[in-house]
């Protein structure tokens, strides 16, 4: 269970929840949705959005919330606000059904989110466990300090002094093991006298979740210098992680200390009928729920303005990472810096000089709330998002691993397999579903654009279903699920999750135009579509979510669909709003380096699936 699921909620009103307003205060935009009970089920009915107002002149997050809700008022004709107050409960029983809501809930990643520093003893053991605990709680991990991280003691102390995290998580040592290294780290933290980012008068929250035998010493060293809290050891024995208690404690401290310091949060907390949840924690709740309910492996992504969060559930194991400076507005320039101009340009279906592109990207960085007005601007943003998604997945793969340093039991059948501990859990061939969320994916003018952005960035192998959050409301539903499970589920199924379709991608490479596989698609109307998928081809078949098609592929001898090279493959797949896509572009995907050839190839792909309006 995640921290979010366990977090205490305030007492819920006795009357049923028929009208709910939820907001997500993002770093760029505050999104509000209205959920109403229609008959026996809940539906998302109206939405509004407004710039997040943590900046001058307001410096008060509730202003953006009220603005976004005011948009809902205008669109729905419902009176929700009485000045700066949300009218609760709904006044239906007083004969005024269009006045008030029953509850207001919110998530937030404004204020830069929760920035944490974590410490462990061994970097790729307790250090990584601590990182996973913090990431799972919705934090951005700004540094991982460990006894063996290669830095000299004074460098560690300097680092703690200069980074100014919102919170520190300390781990290290198994219960009953040696205490020296953890105590040493506590001494470094004490010597650094860390100050929190916000507020000069409150103490820095610090969660100690290491060897429980070291608690008294840690208390002596840090008790007076920090707001110290203890949680169960996150690695009580070498072979097991116990992340939930630390995650819960982080969440509680975030609400009690950190969020209170951000502009306007005290007011927001008072307005809300349930604890404010960090946005990534709320999205994590939804991702875990989908995977559990369907019994599948999934990768979820929430690409925001400042960060890109990646979630995965493989074999029931949940992981989350945040790439703190990969995003589409505040961090857009960092995507350019990290990916490099060439990598971005490889997705742009026209030529543009470097200076113009650089200036445009920087202008988006300094004015992050703007939207692409022309098609070429949209195509540039889509190119950048592919790179942000790709880089964030690489980051995720490196952290979503099995426990490191643990001796594995091996049988005779493993003798020839070179398996190491700490191997990434992300196996794209075993991936069932990719879920996309965030402005660039949720608000793409054509759904195929969201699908191809994710396919190009993740290069799924074999058969993979793709879906997208229809209007970016997963955070709202995550927090709502802690208050009313049925409302969250109803809206999620009916209004939130849009299945895009299925992508079938053979593994292998060949020359453009060469045979990749012969295909036979048995469509639900009885038609059978047969043909050859050549390398470099993208084929799209119309197939809705409630339809199924049986696909048989006979790949050429060097091509694999998960059954082995050259082995025939048959699978029944579902469609979606985009349909069934056969991706014959090869894996790994390779684009021509010559500019004219690349533009021609991109144009061919984009036209094959109707990515953009004709004539572009």
């Amino acid at each position, binding site marked *: 269970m995640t921290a979010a699921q366990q977090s205490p909620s305030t007492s819920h009103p006795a009357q049923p929840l028929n009208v709910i307003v939820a907001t997500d205060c993002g770093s760029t935009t505050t999104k509000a949705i209205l959920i109403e009970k229609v008959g026996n089920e809940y539906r998302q009915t109206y939405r509004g959005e407004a710039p997040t107002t943590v900046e001058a002149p307001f410096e008060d997050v509730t202003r953006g919330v009220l603005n976004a809700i005011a948009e809902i008022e205008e669109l729905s004709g419902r009176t929700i606000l009485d000045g700066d107050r949300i009218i609760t409960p709904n006044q239906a029983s007083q004969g005024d059904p269009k006045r008030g809501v029953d509850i207001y809930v919110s998530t937030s990643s404004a204020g830069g989110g929760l920035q944490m520093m974590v410490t462990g003893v061994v970097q790729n053991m307790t250090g990584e466990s601590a990182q996973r605990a913090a990431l799972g709680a919705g934090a951005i991990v700004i540094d991982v300090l460990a006894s063996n991280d290669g830095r000299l003691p004074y460098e560690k102390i300097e680092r703690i002094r200069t980074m100014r995290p919102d919170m520190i998580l300390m781990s290290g040592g198994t219960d009953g093991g040696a205490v020296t290294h953890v105590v040493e780290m506590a001494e470094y933290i004490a010597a650094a006298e860390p100050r929190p980012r916000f507020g*000069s008068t409150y103490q820095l929250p610090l969660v100690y979740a290491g060897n429980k035998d070291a608690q008294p010493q840690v208390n002596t060293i840090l008790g007076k210098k920090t707001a110290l809290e203890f949680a169960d050891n996150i690695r009580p024995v070498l072979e097991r992680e116990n992340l939930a208690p630390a995650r819960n404690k982080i969440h509680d401290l975030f609400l009690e200390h950190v969020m209170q310091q951000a502009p306007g949060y005290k007011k927001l907390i008072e307005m809300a009928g349930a604890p404010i949840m960090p946005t990534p924690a709320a999205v994590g709740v939804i991702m875990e729920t989908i995977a559990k309910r369907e019994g599948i492996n999934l990768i979820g992504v929430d690409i925001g303005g400042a960060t890109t969060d990646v979630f995965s559930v493989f074999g029931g194991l949940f992981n989350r990472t945040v790439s703190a400076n990969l995003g589409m507005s505040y961090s857009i320039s*960092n995507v350019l810096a990290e990916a490099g101009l060439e990598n971005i340009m490889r997705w742009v279906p026209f030529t543009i000089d470097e200076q113009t592109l650089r200036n445009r990207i920087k202008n988006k960085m300094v004015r992050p709330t703007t939207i692409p007005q022309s098609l070429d*601007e949209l195509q540039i943003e889509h190119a950048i998002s592919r790179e942000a998604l790709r880089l964030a997945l690489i980051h995720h793969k490196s952290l979503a691993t099995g426990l490191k340093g643990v001796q594995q039991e091996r049988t005779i059948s493993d003798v020839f397999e070179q398996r190491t501990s700490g191997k990434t859990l992300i196996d794209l061939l075993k991936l069932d579903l990719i879920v996309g969320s965030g402005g660039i994916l949720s608000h793409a003018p054509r759904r195929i654009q969201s699908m191809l952005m994710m396919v190009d960035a993740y290069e799924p192998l074999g058969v993979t279903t793709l879906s997208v959050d229809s209007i970016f409301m997963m955070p709202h539903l995550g927090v709502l699920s802690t208050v009313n499970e049925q409302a969250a589920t109803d809206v999620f199924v009916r209004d939130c999750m849009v299945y895009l379709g299925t992508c079938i991608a053979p593994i292998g490479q060949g020359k453009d135009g060469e045979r990749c596989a012969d295909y036979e698609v048995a469509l639900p109307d009885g038609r059978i579509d047969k043909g050859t998928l050549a390398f470099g081809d993208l084929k799209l078949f119309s197939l809705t979510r409630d339809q199924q098609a049986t696909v048989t592929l006979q790949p050429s001898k060097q091509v694999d669909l998960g059954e082995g090279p050259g082995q025939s493959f048959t699978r029944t797949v579902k469609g979606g709003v985009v349909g069934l896509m056969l991706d014959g572009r090869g894996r790994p995907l390779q684009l021509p380096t010559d500019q004219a050839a690349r533009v021609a190839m991109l144009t061919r792909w984009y036209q094959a699936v109707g990515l953009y309006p004709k004539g572009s």
Partner: protein
Amino acid sequence: MAHSYTPGLTVTERMTVRRRRILPLPGSVLVQVGDAVRADTAVARAELPGKVVPLNLANQLGIAPDEINDYLVKKEKDSVQKDDVLAENKPFIKWFKTEIRSPITGKVESVSTITGQILLREPPRVLELRGYIDGTIAEVHPEQGVTVESTCSLVQGIFGIGGETSGELVMGVKAPDQPLLPEQLNPSMKGKVVVGGAFLSAATMARAKELGIVGLVVGGIHDKDLRALLGYDLGVAITGTEQVGFTLILTEGFGTIPMAPKTFALLSAHAGQKASISGATQIRAGVIRPEIIIPHSGPAAVTKVAPAEREGIQLGDPVRIIRDPLFGKIGAVSGLPSELRAIPTESEVRVLEVRFPDGTTTVVPRANIEVIEGA
């Protein structure tokens, strides 16, 4: 859309600003409410704790950590000079004596019998906080700092680099659409803040550095020149600590973009006066924009400053288009249709109509304009 809100940059001839000057850690405040201060007046002082140097005595003496107190010559909180003996053993044979000497001058911060470590700390470094603007102390925050108030002209930029500085305002060009060229800079501009027009090249920046110009204010620059100036590609807009020789403020954005006529006229009107400028930019929550503050002469009356209130975009508001293809164009709001409109990307968005000075109009997404605020 009474509540719709679009953030904008303030360009105003007269307003009262308050700037909180807060120490990074508790210290002492050196002024009182009502005191007149100048930009370079020290208003508060703090002692930044010195660097910490850890030494593992137990290892060096070859003893158990819980024995180290028996070997210490200096105790916790003792002052030490460099090379003072911190700990020593007492062998039977004097030649085998081991002495651990202090690598620094400072004091003994802590001694740990668990890790066998001793932490030494260097003497604190005094940090003096300056007033930043000429004005009056409006508030004292005990142990933390002050709020300085000033009646001034204010120009907010969109992006900047470099820290706080001040100097006389000098016009480097005659019109807002002229680029600032190297030959327009001269030695008399040393220590001054030079205002350019539409563009500033790398060569002009190099010349400014050479001449000792403290600040440059200009419409736009090329990103590649910024990269060359900084020596790296700026990933996120969190700036203010760069040390490139001057403080740079862009009023419009990246590219060749004429400075807004209102901004240029205001700065021109104050040429010869002292300005306080800061390039610090933080385009995240708690946004900080770079600014040019030109204090008006005479002490400011200490009055309560009413928080800014905007009632959203109104017809006639001066606006700047902040996205291609019309990036940088300035006009006035001439229509506020409430229904969503499809734009060339096929997105359906809220739009507004802008009328340009030549009488032509265009429709742009509301997200792509910025109100030029300030009377």
